[in-house]
């Protein structure tokens, strides 16, 4: 019996001596897109949420680990490197991305492509394919012992932070521009940035960054709507085109990070313009078609200023003055009544 025990122990010992060191990458299956966005756009592995762990099987060996994060944009054919890191030698153990940089696992070198990270942040949430690869080297970092890779696919390119209003290419009254956006989880504050777009050849990004700001990255707190007039730093010019972006600060180490919405462009009505005057006439006409009502009377008597009205559908969606006129003209036969609450 004793000799059998010795035999079994010997087998285990010899097996462990000749076992091939290995590394296995575990990406958390319940990983949220938001967590991954934080990870993929953060140049600080320790501060990122726990996204992956590496199961290293190299007992009592000193090893070096290298990690690559690559991204393939929707529609692109190749992966490009967003970031990589390589550790100093450490005694092998299982570790997760937020362990890297800790006492026993120090980063020797790292790289982050800031342009790609910014591009990712502009999307607001992971979009396309992301490939994580970990490599296990010996202590000299010259000999590759093992590697593992996982690909995460985020096919839905929808924005996390989406501006509901104002809507692209719509025209609004200067006094009646409600900025509304979708909330995103983890946001501590929202910021608004708006500028004139004086040159139609300018890209929206250029106009936002280089134009004279109307709202200069103003912290509006933890709200999801605000009247643009309340935060303007200078007056809107009638007839001008405006670009606007909302960003959210996501709480985290070193002050957190920003998730950006898409940039929307819209115009400001010019009350002097012929087009605006035509709108007023159309509204008058369409109200009169609907029979006598107080709204028509107020408008006809010049007591109702379109720049001071706010129009919403039953589901809360905002309509512009022009959209209201178009709707009533198209549906005049289906209008039942106009009543004052």
């Amino acid at each position, binding site marked *: 019996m004793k000799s059998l025990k010795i035999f079994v122990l010997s087998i285990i010992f010899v097996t462990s001596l000749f076992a091939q060191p290995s590394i296995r990458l575990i990406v958390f299956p319940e990983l949220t897109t938001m967590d991954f966005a934080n990870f993929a756009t953060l140049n600080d592995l320790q501060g990122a949420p726990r996204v992956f762990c590496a199961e290293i099987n190299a007992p009592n060996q000193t090893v070096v680990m290298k990690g690559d994060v690559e991204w393939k944009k929707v529609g692109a054919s190749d992966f490009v490197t967003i970031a990589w890191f390589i550790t100093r030698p450490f005694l092998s153990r299982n570790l997760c991305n937020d362990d890297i940089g800790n006492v026993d696992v120090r980063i020797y070198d790292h790289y982050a492509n800031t342009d790609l990270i910014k591009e990712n942040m502009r999307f607001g949430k992971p979009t396309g394919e992301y490939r994580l690869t970990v490599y296990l080297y010996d202590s000299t970092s010259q000999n590759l012992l093992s590697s593992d890779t996982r690909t995460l696919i985020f096919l839905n390119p929808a924005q996390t932070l989406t501006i509901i209003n104002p809507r692209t290419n719509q025209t609004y009254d200067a006094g009646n521009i409600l900025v509304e956006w979708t909330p995103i989880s983890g946001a501590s504050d929202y910021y608004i940035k708006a500028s004139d777009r004086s040159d139609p050849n300018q890209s929206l990004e250029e106009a936002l960054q280089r134009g004279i700001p109307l709202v200069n990255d103003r912290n509006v707190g933890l709200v999801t709507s605000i009247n643009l007039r309340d935060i303007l730093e200078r007056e809107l010019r009638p007839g001008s085109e405006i670009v606007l972006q909302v960003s959210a600060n996501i709480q985290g180490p070193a002050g957190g990070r920003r998730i950006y919405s898409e940039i929307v462009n819209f115009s400001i009505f010019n009350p002097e313009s012929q087009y605006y005057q035509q709108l007023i006439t159309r509204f008058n006409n369409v109200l009169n078609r609907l029979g006598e009502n*107080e*709204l028509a009377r*107020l408008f006809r008597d010049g*007591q*109702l*200023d379109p720049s*001071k*009205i*706010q*129009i*919403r*559908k*039953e589901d809360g969606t905002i*309509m512009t003055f022009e959209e*209201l006129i178009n*709707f*009533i003209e198209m*549906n005049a*036969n*289906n*209008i*039942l*009544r*106009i*009543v*004052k*609450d």
Partner: protein
Amino acid sequence: MKNLKLLVTILILSLIITAFQPLPNNPSAYNAAIVLKVIQDVKHKKPTTNWINTKPATQLETADQLKTGSKSVAVVRFVDGSSLRVRENTTITIFADKKERGLLKNTKIDVGKMRFDVEKQQEEDEFIITTPTAVATIRGTSGFVNVDENGQTLLVVETGVVDVRALFGAQQSGTVEAGNSSFINLEGNVTINSSTEQDLNEARNSMRTNEKYIQIQTPQGTFRVYYLDFE
């Protein structure tokens, strides 16, 4: 305890007797349809009563009349699931007769517009729409009927088939298939043609029975523009 048992037995017996009562012999007491939706001004009456305001869930018995005012709509559903969307300024009379084998449903429309969505009828059942100039027999069909003030009838068939027959004059008849419209004039002529864009639009629009609103906030108060939308 014995009394209690007796009381319960009587109660159960009376419930059973009530449940197996045959339909009333008086056809006027037969519930033919129910008003599902009322938008704005809708009224109904029995042959012997005055018009009264209609509320949702009003039961219509055979020979009851229903009328809609301006910008008003009523949705009526029959026991077999068939429905009528009665548009503005329309008057209809509902008849339903439980025959020995099957149920006859006849809706008489005097004037106005009405959409019909008729469930597939059992062999013994019949669904008929009668206008001042025509009678249309419908089996599993959707469409639209418009009766002008003279009684002339326009019938638009969206799905299924409708057999139509003029009641007076030449008393022509025909079969109207999906995508076609039929016009029945005062002389009893029945003409059948492909539905025009206007016919189809009107038929589609007749499905608007959902009341919605747009809210306009002004310094002078809040206004609501109510409109009809699709369900």
